[in-house]
């Protein structure tokens, strides 16, 4: 029974990893590629480590496996956020079907600053309140 469960988890994890690799190959731009690799890759890796914990059925091994899973779950989003942010700042081209880019006319890649468009609006509202 334990062997059956281990086999299932190993195959599931490796198939998820294959899916992540396929997504990274086929997706059109950096952010969609990261969307594929980060989630499917982290889930696949975690599933395979859980398979090891199930197979050995030992306290020390389970603790180490759990540590790896927690570490993967904690670090995958952080690393993806950092790389996506760096990629945007470097100026990677977005996919032509991208619907929303909220930083488009606000971020200045030369000075590395973000212009806030609503600063004028808020000052205008305070002016109006003073007038009242």
């Amino acid at each position, binding site marked *: 029974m334990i062997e059956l469960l281990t*086999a299932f988890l190993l195959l599931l994890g490796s198939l998820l990893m294959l899916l992540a690799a396929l997504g990274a190959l086929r997706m059109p731009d950096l952010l969609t590629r990261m969307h594929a690799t980060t989630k499917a890759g982290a889930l696949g890796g975690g599933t395979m480590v859980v398979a090891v914990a199930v197979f050995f059925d030992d306290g020390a091994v389970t603790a180490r496996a759990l540590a790896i899973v927690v570490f993967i779950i904690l670090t995958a989003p952080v690393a993806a956020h950092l790389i996506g942010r760096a990629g945007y700042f470097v100026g990677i081209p977005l996919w032509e079907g991208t619907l929303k880019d909220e930083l488009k006319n606000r971020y200045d890649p030369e000075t590395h600053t973000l212009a806030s468009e609503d600063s004028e609006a808020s000052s205008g509202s305070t002016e109006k309140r003073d007038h009242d």
Partner: protein
Amino acid sequence: MPILDWAVTATFVILSLALVIIFIRLIKGPSLPDRVVALELIASLTVGFIATHAVATRMANFLDVAVVLALTAFLAAVGFARYLEKGGERSDD
């Protein structure tokens, strides 16, 4: 037992296939961040290889290697991101 041996072999085959596919992206990747993403997935695939090898050889000690590799891969991703953001090469053509 034969089911597990068969599954371990199949897992090795699938992981190798994934490694080949992501290697194509690593070579093609039009920009440096694409290559960093590919390298990160390669590190995660290697963690999977180590886990499968631990089951294949019945040696649980290999999990320590997986811990170290996961840690190093995260540090490498952070380092690359910092290098890109603080003005590295804008393109690597």
